[in-house]
């Protein structure tokens, strides 16, 4: 994983790479120097050759021109000597011209400057009689003056030929007879005076003093300007220069060629070197990359010999299996294979030996003793007797596969157990998936649903249009997020309500493949909701129908949040939003609350704040006000109050409570009354039968037609019925015994307190003063507390009732208890009522006798029975102060014990 490119290693490489280039450069430079030297030499020799040749050419020309001078001198001399006539002149001149190509004309110009004779005869320039031009005259005069051969300047003749004239003076003694003129064609001089090989080698040019080229022998070939030579041509002098320039020889290699070749080859070498370098570098790079890949690879890479031992391993071996890559080479591959996988691995290795690439999975031993799943991919290279192997750690994948299988099973189980039905349709509306919950819901099998198209089998026939429209909306992607509520037909024909929530079905690639619907059976929730709604309506109806005023107010601000109709009717229809304290009367004072509602938090709830009865200060009506701190729907603490007008109820409750108490307290008396009634009823039956039998017997006996056996049978039956009556009475006695009084030691003061407590209610109502006078230190009595209480209460009430019509100031009832002898206690109830007449007093204790309209007439009778049961006496006396005194005695506990012992 570390970078291999360190500079120490790179430097020699660089030197190594530079050397060839340096060598090539040195080689090329030396070669160039050599070539330069050689070429310089050659040039030198060429120049020498040119100089020699030019000198030779000049010499040739000079010789030719000197010859012509001599010929012309001869003519001049002959002419001077008059040894020459015109014809001879013509002959000799034409002959000379014919021999010397460079000559164009030969003429004799008289001393007057006019042409006398001219050769060749067909010439058009030097016509006889023509006079010399000014220029020619100059040269002519110089020749006459000097008496010597004189050359004129080269000039362009009217015929377009550059000519050079030579004037040879004719002297006869001292007499000047003109001059012989020879006209050279410059061009011809150049062309004809040098031999052919020269013309082939050089370009020969004649230049005048001004450097202008007058004539050249050839214009055709390329010149080598570097090889040239100039030499003055004298005669004629006048600055004429002869210049020779070597032609470039075609067969000769251009001078630059070797240089070019050297440079070109060097470049080629450089280029090839560069290419080589690039290639090698690339190879090195690739190798490095391969090495890095080998080292970096997450998969294990190794080279294994044909003998099955590791040759080379990458670091992944250490990472995955824990073996050092350095330690493994030499180890047989099979050593690290799991024992159970050895056979399968060997099988694969055999295939490998046969030259087939193989791929297999096995478990391999790690250095720490654990095993890992690996997938091997091995390629044999038979020629190298090696195999290249790649191993990928698939332990994770195996685990993941395992996990996936578990997950899949879990998912399946979850799908099967989930209560929500799932149904997927593709984009064309065909069902592609249903879960078991859905199948359960609709009652169809999965097989019946998968692939089904609209109308689906679970659509109820009466709602197909609705269902079809919902499906259309779904497929159009416009299904509401709240889902559809649809009715479903189960296979057995039942209907149920369901809610479909739809969401797009997206595959792994992110494309939508359909729509998934989650289906919930809402039959029950719907029913529940309906029930809830109904309950809410009922609640409202009930709350509003209440006579009681109900309100809910914020505990802190006292703002009314809710008030029912009764509350609004009493305190104003704009009550909601105002404060309770502002609108409602009566209200409990702050101090009346058990806790201050403003300090309550939600955690303290619910808490009763107040429960009591309040009187409206103005109307005097009574309200039962109950307030409770509770949690409002929005979570804040509120005070909920219910105020019920209990004015009427209070009154009736008072009365009914008294009745209730009376009823309760006389329960045991009533039981006794019922007992008497039952006794009577039960006894009626046998008694009536006995009477009938007897009457029948009497009748028959009177008629005298009775058979004794008939009468006997009837009499037997009558006696049997008498026995039956006896049994009934016995049964009743047993019952009475069971409900015998439970006597114990009782403080008479306690008994009186309880009894008076009840009676006080009546006494207040009637405005009667009740005075209890109990002597201190009374002994406890042995009595049934309840029964005695009943007796006292009964007597007190009788007394109270007796005083209804008495003047208010006289309405006093005294209950007095005191010792009655050493072994008894006497209780007297003394009223100031209407009293009892003598007649009444005699019948007072007769059952069913009463002076009260609502009475049963049982009271006093039973009271006396109770007291007598307790071994006491109940007596009635007239009160000397008006009214009646009822008094009874009870034995003390000690006295009773003595009696019991005696018994």
């Amino acid at each position, binding site marked *: 994983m570390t970078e291999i490119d360190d500079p120490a290693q790179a430097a020699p490489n660089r030197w190594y790479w530079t050397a060839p280039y340096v060598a090539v450069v040195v080689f090329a430079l030396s070669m160039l120097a050599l070539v330069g030297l050689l070429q310089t030499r050659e040039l030198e020799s060429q120049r020498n050759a040119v100089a020699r040749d030019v000198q030779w050419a000049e010499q040739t020309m000079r010789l030719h021109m000197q010859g012509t001078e001599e010929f012309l001198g001869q003519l001049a001399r002959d002419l001077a000597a008059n040894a020459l006539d015109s014809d001879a002149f013509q002959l000799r001149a034409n002959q000379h011209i014919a021999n010397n190509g460079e000559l164009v004309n030969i003429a004799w110009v008289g001393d007057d400057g006019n042409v006398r004779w001219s050769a060749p005869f067909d010439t058009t320039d030097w016509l006889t009689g023509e006079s010399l031009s000014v220029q020619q005259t100059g040269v002519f005069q110089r020749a006459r003056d000097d008496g010597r051969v004189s050359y004129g300047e080269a000039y362009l003749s009217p015929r377009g030929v550059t000519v050079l004239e030579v004037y040879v003076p004719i002297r006869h003694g001292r007499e000047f007879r003109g001059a012989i003129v020879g006209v050279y064609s410059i061009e011809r001089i150049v062309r004809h005076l040098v031999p052919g090989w020269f013309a082939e080698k050089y370009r020969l040019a004649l230049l005048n003093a001004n450097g202008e080229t007058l004539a050249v022998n050839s214009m055709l070939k390329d010149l080598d300007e570097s090889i040239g030579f100039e030499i003055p041509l004298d005669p004629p002098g006048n600055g004429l220069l002869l210049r020779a320039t070597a032609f470039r020889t075609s067969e000769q290699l251009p001078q630059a060629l070797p240089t070019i070749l050297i440079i070109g080859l060097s470049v080629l070498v450089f280029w090839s070197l560069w290419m080589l370098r690039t290639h090698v570098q690339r190879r090195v790079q690739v190798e490095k990359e391969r090495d890095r890949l080998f080292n970096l690879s997450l998969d294990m890479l190794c080279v294994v010999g044909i003998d099955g031992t590791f040759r080379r391993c990458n670091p992944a071996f250490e990472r995955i299996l824990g073996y050092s890559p350095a330690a493994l080479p030499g180890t047989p591959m099979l050593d690290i294979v799991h024992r159970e996988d050895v056979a399968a691995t060997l099988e694969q290795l055999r295939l490998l030996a046969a030259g087939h690439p193989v791929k297999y999975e096995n478990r391999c031993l790690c250095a720490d003793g654990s095993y890992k799943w690996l997938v091997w991919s091995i390629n044999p290279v038979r020629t190298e007797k090696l195999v290249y192997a790649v191993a990928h750690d698939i332990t994770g994948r195996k685990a993941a596969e395992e996990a996936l299988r578990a997950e899949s099973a879990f998912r399946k189980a979850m799908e099967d157990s989930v209560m929500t039905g799932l149904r997927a349709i593709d984009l064309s509306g065909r069902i592609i998936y249903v879960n078991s919950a859905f199948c359960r819901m609709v009652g169809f099998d999965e097989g019946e649903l998968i692939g089904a198209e609209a109308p689906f089998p679970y659509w109820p026939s009466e709602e197909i249009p609705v269902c079809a429209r919902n499906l259309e909306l779904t497929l159009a992607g416009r299904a509401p997020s709240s889902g559809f509520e649809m009715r479903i037909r189960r296979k057995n024909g039942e209907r149920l309500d369901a809610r479909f929530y739809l969401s797009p079905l997206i595959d792994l690639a992110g494309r939508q493949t359909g729509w998934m619907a989650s289906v919930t059976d809402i039959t029950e929730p719907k029913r529940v909701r309906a029930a809830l709604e109904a309950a809410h309506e009922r609640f409202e109806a009930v709350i509003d129908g209440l006579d009681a005023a109900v309100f809910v107010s914020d505990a802190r601000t006292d703002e009314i949040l809710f008030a029912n109709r009764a509350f609004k009717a009493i305190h104003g229809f704009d009550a909601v939003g105002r404060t309770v304290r502002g609108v409602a009367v009566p209200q409990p004072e702050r101090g009346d609350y058990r806790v201050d509602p403003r300090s309550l938090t939600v955690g303290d709830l619910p808490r009763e704040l107040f429960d009591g009865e309040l009187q409206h200060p103005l109307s005097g009506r009574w309200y039962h006000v109950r307030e409770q701190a509770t949690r409002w729907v929005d979570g804040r603490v509120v005070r909920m109050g219910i105020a019920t007008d209990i004015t009427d109820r209070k009154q009736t409750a008072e009365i009914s409570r008294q009745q209730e108490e009376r009823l309760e307290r006389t329960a045991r008396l009533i039981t006794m009354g019922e007992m008497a009634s039952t006794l009577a*009823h039960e006894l*009626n*039956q046998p008694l009536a039968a006995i009477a*009938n*039998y007897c009457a*029948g*017997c009497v*009748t028959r006996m009177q008629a005298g*037609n009775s058979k004794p056996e008939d009468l006997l049978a009837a009499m037997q039956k009558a006696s049997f*019925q008498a026995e039956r009556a006896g049994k009934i009475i016995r049964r009743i006695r047993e019952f009475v015994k069971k409900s015998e009084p439970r006597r114990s030691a009782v403080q008479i003061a306690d008994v009186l307190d309880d009894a008076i407590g009840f009676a006080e209610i009546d006494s207040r109502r009637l405005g009667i003063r009740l005075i209890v006078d109990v002597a201190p230190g009374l002994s406890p009595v042995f009595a049934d507390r309840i029964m005695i209480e009943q007796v006292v209460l009964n007597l007190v009430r009788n007394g109270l009732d007796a005083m209804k019509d008495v003047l208010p100031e006289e309405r006093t009832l005294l209950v007095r208890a005191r010792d009655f002898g050493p072994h008894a206690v006497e209780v007297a109830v003394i009223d100031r009522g209407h009293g009892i007449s003598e007649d009444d007093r005699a019948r007072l204790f007769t059952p069913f006798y009463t002076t009260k309209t609502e009475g049963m007439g049982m009271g006093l009778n039973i009271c006396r029975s109770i007291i007598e049961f307790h071994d006491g006496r109940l007596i009635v006396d007239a009160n000397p102060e008006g009214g009646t005194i009822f008094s009874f005695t009870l034995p003390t506990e000690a006295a009773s014990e003595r009696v019991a012992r005696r018994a």
Partner: protein
Amino acid sequence: MSESHAAPDQQIFIVDDDEALRDSLVWMLESSGYAVAAFESAEAFLAVYEEAMSGCLVLDVRMPGMSGLELFEELGRQRCTLPVIFITGHGDVPMAVSALKRGAVDFIEKPFGDQDMLRLVEQCLTQERASRSQRRLEADTARRLEHLTQREREVLDLIIVGKLNKQIADVLGISIKTVEVHRARVMEKMGAHSLAELVQHVVTVEPAGTVR
């Protein structure tokens, strides 16, 4: 048996669940010469009940199963004309009173004296006899009325409302002679010996309002 004034077909039906009381009643009534049939429950009586029964019914108010009062109501629904005497216990007086209001002849409280019972029974039987002969007469009259021709019926109707023969003749547009013939035939067919008897017979069957 000597004291009984019952018609031979009259019978006293006793329904009481108490075996002793039932048996003693049978004994007592038979001693006085009545034909008595006893049943231990209302259901048992209903099982044998038929319309032709004649006599009177002695019912115990309180019985397990169908009570005496319920049986009384059931018999009322079946248009039973037997007079009913209720036997009540000590606490059943209000119940008996309500039964009385619904048409029972009387009630008698247990324990009762034999004379009271016998008196009530005799009273019932007499009443039953009277109403039975009355019903028989009515049935007879109704049957006779059906035998009248249309014209005779018209004539009868007019006779009943007190029209004279002449007036009848005018109303029906027939001669007095013919009316007389019809009249004689009506009297014959209805078995009436006088005009008063005829009218009385017809009116008991067809109360005045229904007469045309």
